[in-house]
C-alpha cells in the first residue's frame, strides 16, 4: 500500500480542501495552549501582594486536601446529577408531546416556553429566580396567601433553590436532545406492539422508552456536563451557602489574585468532570445499547 491509497480521489483533485481545516486546527491549538498555560500556573507559587508567580510547587494541590474542597467537589457532582435527572424527568413528557402532538398550537407553545430560557441572559434569569424564590417572592406569597404555609419556606441560599434555577436552564437542552431521539423512533415499532395487543402504557414502557435510550443518555450526559460549568446561578441563588467548583475558582482565585491556586482548582475540576462523565457513560451504556436500532 502506498500513500496514495489513503487519499480520497476528491482530495487528490482538490488539495486546497485541506486548507479548510486550518480554522479548526488553529482553534484546537489555541485551546491546547490555554490548557497548558492553566496547567503551568497550577504548579507555580503564589506571591502575596504581587501578580507575578514564583517557582514550581505542588503546594496548590496539597492545599486542596482541606475538607472544604472535598465538600464542594461532592456538592458539585450532586447538584449536576440532581439537575440532570430532574431535567430528564420533566423534559421527557415535554419532548414526547412536542414530537407526537398533531396540534400545531401545542407544539409551538411547548417549543417557545421550553426554549425561551436559552435566550435570556444568565444574570437576568438568575435574578428573576431570586425574586421568585425569596421570602417575599412569588412562591412564598402564593403559598402563604392560600394558607398552605404560615411562615415562608427557605428556598434561596439552599440546594433546592439552586437546583430549581439550574433545571430551568438545563431543561431546554434536554428537551431538544430527547425530541431528536424520539423523532427518530420508527412509529411502525409502536404500531406493531399495538397490533399484538399492547396498551398505550405498555407500548411506551416496552418500546418507546427503551428506543429513546440513546437520547436519554445523551441528554443526561449533556445536562450533567452543562451544569458543571454553572457559575452565576449558584453564586447568586446560593448566596455563598451553596457553592460549586466554579464559585471556588472565583472566590479563591480571582477575587484573591491567587491565580496559581485558581488554576489548580480548574485542573482538579476538569479532572473531576472527565471522571464523572466517564463513570456516567459507562454505567449508562446498557441503556444506550437497548436503544440502538
Amino acid at each position: 500500500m502506498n500513500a496514495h491509497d489513503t487519499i480520497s480521489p476528491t482530495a487528490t483533485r482538490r488539495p486546497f480542501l485541506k486548507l479548510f481545516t486550518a480554522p479548526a486546527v488553529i482553534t484546537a491549538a489555541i485551546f491546547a495552549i490555554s490548557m497548558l498555560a492553566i496547567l503551568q500556573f497550577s504548579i507555580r507559587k503564589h506571591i502575596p501582594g504581587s501578580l507575578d508567580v514564583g517557582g514550581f510547587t505542588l503546594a496548590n494541590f496539597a492545599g486542596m486536601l482541606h475538607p472544604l474542597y472535598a465538600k464542594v467537589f461532592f456538592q458539585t457532582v450532586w447538584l449536576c446529577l440532581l439537575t440532570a435527572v430532574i431535567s430528564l424527568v420533566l423534559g421527557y413528557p415535554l419532548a414526547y408531546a412536542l414530537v407526537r402532538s398533531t396540534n400545531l398550537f401545542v407544539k409551538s407553545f411547548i417549543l417557545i416556553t421550553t426554549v425561551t430560557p436559552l435566550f435570556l441572559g444568565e444574570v437576568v434569569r438568575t435574578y428573576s429566580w431570586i425574586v421568585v424564590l425569596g421570602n417575599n417572592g412569588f412562591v412564598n406569597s402564593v403559598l402563604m396567601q392560600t394558607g398552605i404555609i404560615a411562615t415562608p419556606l427557605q428556598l434561596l441560599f439552599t440546594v433546592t433553590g439552586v437546583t430549581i434555577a439550574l433545571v430551568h436552564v438545563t431543561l431546554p437542552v434536554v428537551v431538544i436532545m430527547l425530541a431528536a431521539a424520539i423523532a427518530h423512533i420508527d412509529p411502525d415499532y409502536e404500531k406493531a406492539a399495538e397490533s399484538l395487543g399492547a396498551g398505550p402504557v405498555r407500548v411506551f414502557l416496552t418500546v418507546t422508552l427503551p428506543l429513546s435510550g440513546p437520547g436519554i443518555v445523551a441528554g443526561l450526559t449533556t445536562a450533567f456536563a452543562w451544569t458543571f460549568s454553572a457559575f452565576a446561578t449558584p453564586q447568586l441563588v446560593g448566596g455563598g451557602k451553596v457553592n460549586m467548583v466554579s464559585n471556588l475558582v472565583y472566590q479563591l482565585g480571582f477575587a484573591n489574585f491567587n491565580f496559581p491556586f485558581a488554576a489548580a482548582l480548574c485542573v482538579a475540576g476538569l479532572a473531576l468532570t472527565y471522571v464523572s462523565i466517564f463513570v456516567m457513560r459507562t454505567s449508562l451504556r446498557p441503556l444506550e445499547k437497548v436503544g440502538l436500532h
Partner: protein
Amino acid sequence: MRMPIAILAAAGIALSSTASLAAEKLVISVWGGSWKDLVEQTVVKKFKAETGADVEFITGGTIDRLNKAKLAKGNPESDLTFTTSHVGWLYATDGLYEPLDLGKIPNAKWLVEQAKISPYHIGSWAYVYTIGYRPDLLPAGFKFESWNDLWKPELKGKISAPDFDASHLVVVSAVLSGGDAATWQKGGDKLKALKPNFKAYYANDAASQQLMQNGEAPVQVMLSMNAYYIASQGVPVELAIPKEGAVLGIDTIGIMKGSKNVDLAYKFINVLLDPAVQAEIATLKKGSPVVTSAKLAPEIAKLPGVFTTPDQWNKEALVIDHKLRGELTGEWRKWFTENVIN
C-alpha cells in the same frame, strides 16, 4: 501662485493643530455603571471645560482592569486608573504606576492624611463598610453600638457580608480580640463563632442591595454608599458607626507608567481634588471628600460614614493598612472561605 501656497500653508497649520488637539485625549480606566457616570458628570465635565481636552473611558471590574494593565505593562491602554486603595498597591508593586509628584497637584495640599496611600496613588473619594440594618425587621429597639453586637443570638440567620472581601470582618474580629490587621489570627475563633448568624454572602453591590431591600438579610456588613442608595429608593435602612470605628474604604487614582499624557493626567487629578468637585461627588454618592477644603451641605455632612472633620477621620474610621491589606487579602479570603463560608 502665492494664493495656493498660502492656502496650503493654512491647511498645513490647521492639520497640525487638529493633530495636536487629537493628541489631547486622556484615557481613564474606571469601573462601569454609576462610577463611570459619577466621574463623567463631575470631574470630566470640569476638566473638559478647563483644558478643552477629550476624555475616553475604559471600563471594567477591579480585577479585569488590573489584569489588562499588567498585560499592557509599559504601553498602557489608559493614562489614569481608578481602583481601590489596596489593589492600587498591587499596581504599584508591579511597577504599573508612575510615582506621583504632589507638587504638580495644587489641590493636593488639602488632602487628608488617610488619603495619601502611597507615593504612587492617592484617594479620590472615601466610604465605609459598616453595619447596615433594617430596624423594621429586628427586635424593637435593637441598636448597634459595637461590632460585638453582630454576635448577639437575636441575629441568628440574619446577617450577610461580602464574599469577595473578607478584610472587614477579619480585622474587626482581630480588633475585638485584642489584635489588629497584622495579628489577625487572634480573631479567628471569634469570627468562626459568628457563623450561625450568617444568612448569606453577597457577590456584588446589586446582590447586597437586593438582600437588604427584600429583607432576606436585614443586617449587613455594608458599603455606606449602597445603603444610602437604597434608602433613597424608600427602603428603611439605617447605618451604625460602631464605637471601634467603621472600616474605611478609599478609592484611589494613579498615573500609569508609560502614559504619554502625564501633564494632562496631573491636571485631571487636580480637578478631581477641587473642593467643589469633591463636594459634588460626596453629595451624589454620600461618601466622604478626601480634601478638607470641600464644603458639604449640613444634611450630607451629618450622615453616618461621611467624614468632614479631622476628628471624624481619626475617631470614626477603622483604617486597615492598605499595603498590608493588599498583601494579606488573599490569605484572609482563603481563611474566610475555608472556615466561615463553607
